[in-house]
């Protein structure tokens, strides 16, 4: 094949261009630390990366859901634990009050404490978590119980806070005030105890009121075990969400994070090739017969 000077120049130029292109691509990968920065770099990998981004964003969202649910459940549980303690104290007082040997003054002293307990109980029933009343059903912004323990929140399915804790799985995280306090007769038991202490009906205290308090305590303890089970479930899901997130992050990283050592080595090699091409180019472009003919 006949070779002309222009061909050599053109070939040198083309090869330098190709080398520089490769250098630029590697340089881009080194500075972004990612294999693909545009869809066209590798559509298959880029599509998976985009997919993993949404999956990860979703599992982070579920993680937040789960943490919120856990916080809500734990607050409810610890409140109900306090409710149990307070009811236990009321029960002790009832046992003490049922003792027929006490005179009316003693009973009235007990009554004062029971009254305080009722106030205490209303406070517990009006507990708020992050600014929301946990026993108000979905009426989370209004105080659910008045000073006499009358419930103004909602109940049943209207009163449920259903949160999505993983894809397609919702959990009712709250217990409304009606279920917790009214159905279990917490306030009625306490106010009956107070009335009977006032009227000195020690026998009724011993029979009816003690039984009512026991029922209330049992009811609350049942709710607490339900909450415990739910918290356990949330924790299990939370753990698997973490695992899942870790897996997806690992996958994304293996797809899209560059192997720095490899890229730097490739870059170095490419740089050498480029330098060699420049060197050779400088040597072969100049000379022709013109340089060797005498003028």
């Amino acid at each position, binding site marked *: 094949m006949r070779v002309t000077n222009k061909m050599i120049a053109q070939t040198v130029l083309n090869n330098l261009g190709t080398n520089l292109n490769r250098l630029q691509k590697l340089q881009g990968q080194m500075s972004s630390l990612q294999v693909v920065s545009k869809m066209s770099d590798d559509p298959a990998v880029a599509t998976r990366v*985009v997919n993993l981004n949404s999956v990860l964003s979703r599992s982070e969202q579920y993680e*937040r859901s789960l943490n919120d649910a856990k916080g809500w459940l734990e607050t409810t549980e610890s409140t109900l634990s306090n409710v149990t303690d307070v009811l236990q104290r009321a029960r002790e007082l009832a046992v003490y009050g049922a003792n027929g040997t006490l005179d009316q003054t003693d009973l009235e002293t007990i009554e004062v404490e029971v009254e305080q307990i009722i106030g205490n109980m209303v406070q517990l029933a009006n507990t708020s978590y992050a600014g929301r009343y946990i026993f108000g059903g979905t009426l989370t912004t209004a105080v659910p119980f008045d000073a006499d323990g009358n419930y103004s929140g909602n109940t049943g399915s209207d009163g449920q806070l259903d949160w999505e804790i993983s894809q397609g799985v919702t959990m009712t995280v709250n217990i409304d005030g009606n279920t917790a306090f009214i159905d279990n007769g917490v306030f009625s038991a306490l106010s009956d105890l107070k009335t009977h202490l006032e009227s000195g009906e020690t026998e009724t205290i011993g029979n009816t009121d003690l039984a009512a308090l026991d029922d209330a305590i049992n009811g609350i303890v049942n709710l607490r075990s339900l909450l415990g089970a739910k918290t356990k479930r949330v924790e299990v899901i939370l753990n698997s969400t973490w695992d899942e997130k870790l897996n997806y992050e690992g996958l994304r990283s293996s797809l899209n994070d560059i192997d720095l050592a490899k890229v730097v080595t490739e870059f170095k090699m490419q740089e050498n090739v480029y330098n060699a091409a420049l060197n050779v180019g400088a040597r072969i472009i100049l000379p022709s017969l013109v340089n060797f003919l005498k003028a």
Partner: protein
Amino acid sequence: MSSFFMALEIGRRGLVAGLTGMDVSGHNVANANTPGYTRQRIELSASAPYTKPSLGKPEEPLQLGTGVTVEQISRVRDRFLDGQIRTELHALGNWETQRDALSEIETVFMEPSENGLNNLISQFWNDWQELSRNAENSPIRSVLVQDSVTLANFFNHTNSLLETIKTDQQELANIHINDINSKARQIAALNKQIVNIRAAGDQPNDLMDKRDLLLDELAGLVNYTLTENDDGSVNVDLGTQNLVDGSDYTGIGDIDWTDPAPWSGGPYDQVTGGNLNGIKDVLDKLQAYQDNLDTLAANLIADVNGVHEAGYGLDGSTGVQYFTGTGAADIAVNGAIVADPGQIAAAAIEDAPGNGANALAIAHLQNSNVDALGGTSFDGYYKNMIARLGVETQESMRMVDNQQALVDQLSNRRESISGVSMDEEMTNIMQYQYAYMGSARVVSVLDSMLDTLINRMAV
């Protein structure tokens, strides 16, 4: 018997041939880097011999050479390669235009990145999820509104950027058409000169180089068929549309973009290659992306509104639209909601501030398959679209690389045949120099012979 003066004439012819050879080599060297230049070669032949009857053999006259003539100065060119290169240039022009436009579209979508639509949509669904758990919380409502405004703006902005790319490409098409017309005019003018010069019996080498260069450039712009006429002129046709006919040319008009099918009429439906066809193809692709984006926005508006209107805001409002607008161009968050995020219908029942069931129903749209989107989810539809964009952009880049390699290789072959080699020209120059010196010597020897004959012979 031959005369002295005939020998002198032979010497003169040798001098002329040597000088012409020097001229041609000098011209080649001078144009070594001229684009489109074809190296020229001097074609020499021995001039018609003089027949003289021989004394010794009267029946068999001797043929006596009369020196050299320059037959013609010709171009060294392979016309078959020209055709091949131009075919590849049609494809190269086509893909180059598509690559440039598709890369631009890819930049508009900014995927995969934090700021792409994929992330904004994810964030939008996450916000609804968050709201479903904190329905009465007004900061979370405000965050949702702000993220929704960002999402709507992204749709608007992307749509207007795509619209700008479309307008740019349309303008570019008309610039290319002007360029095609201008080249057709120049080719027709060159045709006329070439025909005239050929009629006078000369080879218009440099004009033909110029015409070939124009034909190469035209090949990048649009596909055409080339017919060579006997008089040396060429005809150029775009499909059935004549562009150049000898010394006449027919311009093609600008494309009317207000026409709903701008490529269907006139010469435009015959376009199958070159930059112009690249624009034709890429405008189709661009339209598909714009339509997809529009469909996505329209369905997002309809589905979110459908669920939202069934719910209740904090103030008991119901039947409120969340988004206004009909597509990517005009999607916006309802002004009433921006002014009062309390109107976001998070609750499925009235007067239950903590109820987030409706917000959860909207968040669930993320995974629901939408019939109008071909049975995929919103996210899936968008991902399919940008995956297609990635594949199409990558294809155009690869095709440009391939075509460029082909054109380079063919150009190299053409350069190998038609290019000027310095070494070769230097050798030629030396060759002609010695030939010239030889002829000059013949003349000077004859001169001294004549001197002897005329001046020194005793009278």
